[in-house]
């Protein structure tokens, strides 16, 4: 093949790539999924449903109590109302009646993968106790499950590294629910809150329990044994050589004073010494803290 045709083909591919990028802005619906059994469906564009169950009744459910559909949107833009997050679902809680057949339409509005992954379902019906929707956006994928009879709160999250931690977390409450999960944006507090420093804490304590957590961000002043030995030796030298001078000095100063006067003088001296020592200690401590 000549160089020229190469160039044409190359050009065509390069142009195609920009068309490809433009196409990505519309939401693609993933409908043609291959069934791999056990409720696991997949397509070649990264769409995936796990734990699909349209007809198997969970224990205790005589029949399907009703059909319900919810639409969940996911993306960076839903993190806007929750400071300190980066990704989120449009809602953080869904309430469903027991034994409902629930269809979830999951719309991912970002240009990356997101997941709507539910944990804690009975393992005899759902592999690993999971119901899971996953798609690379902007795209939509749908799946169906039948929720069990028991009142329970289920964790729903995106399991891509740091997505749950940075806000993509919610809960699905069946019946009256049961149990809670920490750090759901707008619903529950962090188990381990962040430290915003002394100036910020005053403003935020009303909302959060005032547990200040030491963070590794602050450098820990490590105890230094070598400098301690040094100060010890200085102290030793002071004690050995200054005590004779101090003793002779005090002998002269207290000549002719009554014992009461000596005690009062000593008390005053002690007080001023203590004050000075406190000042010194504070300034040294500050310097060390820096």
């Amino acid at each position, binding site marked *: 093949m000549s160089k020229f045709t190469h160039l044409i083909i190359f050009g065509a591919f390069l142009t195609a790539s920009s068309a490809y990028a433009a196409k990505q802005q519309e939401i693609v619906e993933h409908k043609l999924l291959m069934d791999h059994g056990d409720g696991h469906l997949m397509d070649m564009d990264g769409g995936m449903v796990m734990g699909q169950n349209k007809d198997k009744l969970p224990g205790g459910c005589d029949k399907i109590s009703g059909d319900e559909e919810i639409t969940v949107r996911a993306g960076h833009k839903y993190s806007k109302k929750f400071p300190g997050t980066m*990704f989120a679902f449009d809602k953080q809680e869904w309430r469903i009646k027991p034994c409902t057949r629930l269809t979830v339409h999951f719309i991912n509005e970002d240009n990356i993968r997101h997941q709507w992954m539910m944990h804690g379902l009975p393992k005899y019906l759902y592999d690993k106790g999971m119901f899971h929707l996953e798609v690379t956006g902007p795209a939509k994928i749908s799946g169906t499950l039948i929720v069990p009879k028991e009142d329970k709160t289920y964790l729903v999250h995106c399991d891509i590294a740091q997505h749950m931690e940075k806000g993509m977390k919610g809960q699905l409450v069946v019946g009256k629910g049961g149990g809670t999960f920490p750090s759901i944006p707008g619903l529950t507090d962090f188990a381990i809150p962040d430290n915003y420093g002394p100036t910020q804490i005053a403003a935020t304590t009303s909302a959060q329990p005032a547990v200040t957590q*030491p963070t590794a961000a602050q450098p820990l002043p490590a105890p230094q044994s070598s400098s*301690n030995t040094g100060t010890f030796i200085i*102290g030793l030298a002071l004690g050995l*050589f200054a005590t004779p001078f101090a003793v002779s000095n005090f002998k002269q100063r207290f000549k002719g004073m009554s014992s009461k006067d000596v005690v009062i003088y000593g008390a005053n001296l002690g007080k001023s010494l203590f004050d000075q020592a406190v000042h010194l200690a504070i300034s*040294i401590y500050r310097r060390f803290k820096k």
Partner: protein
Amino acid sequence: MQTRSLVFLFGSALLSLSTGAGAVTSPPPSAKVQLGQAEPFCNSGVPSEWRKAQVIEGVNIQESRVCNADNPADIAAFVKGTNNISMQTIMDTSSLAADAITKTNDMDGDGDPDHIIIKVEIMEVNGHSPDFAGVVPTFDIAPGIQPSFWVFAPKTRDMSTRSFASVEANPMLRMPSTPIRVEQGDVVWLVVENTHYFPHSIHLHGVDHPFMDHGGEGNDGVGQTSQMDIMPGQSKTYVIRPRQPGTMYYHCHVQPHTHIPMGLAGMFIVEENRPNNWVQTFNVGAGQVRHPSVAVLEKFSQEYDLHYQSVDKDLHKLPQAANDPRLIARAMNQEYDITDATDDYFLLNGRSFPYTLRESLITVNPNEKIKLRILNGHTETLALHTHGHKATETHYDGVEQNPSAQVTRDVYMMAPAQRLDLSINTTDDGLHSFGSGIWMFHDHVERSFTTDGMGEGGSISLIVYKSYLDENGTPKTHGMDLTPYFTKEFWERKIPVWQDWADDWGSLAEPAGIQTAAAASVTGTTGVKSAPDVVATDTSSNPLGSLFNGLLFGIAGYVLYLYRERVLAVINQLASQAKGKH
């Protein structure tokens, strides 16, 4: 400290007395420090079939004799593309996404695809959790050492961890960022899906790429000159058609002084164009390339990717210290100062010794020629040394050196970001090889064979002749017991390195009751206690406290001196009483 103070007191007191009172202070006896729970040498759980040479989906896969061998289904998918293999093989991979690699269109009609779509995601391992005290998903570089990292990883599906019950990262999510291989002349769409919470980009260092693509978008990955960074939740396609082969480099160019050390850097290899040349697109965890390209196999029997990296542990703690991305950004961009930084951990292919022995061995037979592609991802110069071998430097930064001017030596100097191709010849001629054995290879800059200053650690690995390997990839070493290296306590500086060596009474063990600096710093680094607590409860570790102690002992010494006659009289009396009793 207290015992040392006593020694000082008596020392000073006795010095001032001029009698030869015969008090003998015997140094403390040796105490044995118990080893903690040691991991077995090989705990990868890899089925032994994975190590064998085999053919999957028509792809020849070479044998891999290491403990943590690559999954052959992964290799098949990397070579054929996820679009050209069965759904079963995709399911057998380590959770590779169905759209991770698409290979189509044999444009030059030479029997291999020339349009390659490669998708990578940006992942954080050993990250913070607001829900519990540990990190997730975990990737240990050595026993108990989990610095946070960011990596370019092949696009995966499903969970980031091995299972819901495990916090261990999926095998695809690991250091280093995966090496990427393409063929010379391929049209490559490199799709970066930024799943991370910070902006990122890819700069194709040394790889032939146009500054702008045909769609008018910047293609150089440099925010200041080419195109705005890729924001969280966004993706970007880099379009290239490299005309020249060679060992190149790719890395994030956003705040690169922290993003490169954080792990967003990998090898990018352009293989020479040949007919029927299906190259292995990813080489997760680097190391042995189990499906070398046609051009490499013309001259060599094996090929290895070696990526050296270094870690300042203070930098890699920052993403673990807070959850709020604003706090992490502040700590990394405004507070962290790399000009005051020092490196603590040294990695070869993402791990430190002894973990390097599980996966980064170079396993050879006599009379072989092996190609090594090396990237210095350190912040400083690398001086790689191979024991028992003198290798030939064939390519610098991907460009071949004139064959008649190629240098054969045993220390290979590399500046940061440089790449070097080496040819190792295992012919036992006293020059290229000194014969079969277990030969170390390591960076000869001393600190880089330590892990945070504990030796031997760092980026040490081995060239092992296959007669010295058992079936699980354990080298049949002839020296010391390696067990202590597989305990967390060794890297926490708790184990005296030579305690069992010299004799059975431990003449190089630890004196009983010693307060080591290491133990103090260990409690400091765990971060369980806050610093002010430590200072307040333990006066002996406070400089003021020891000054005061010194003063007290000084006064006591003076008083002793003052009343020396009385003290001497008492001592003499006691001595004579003691004599009288005898």
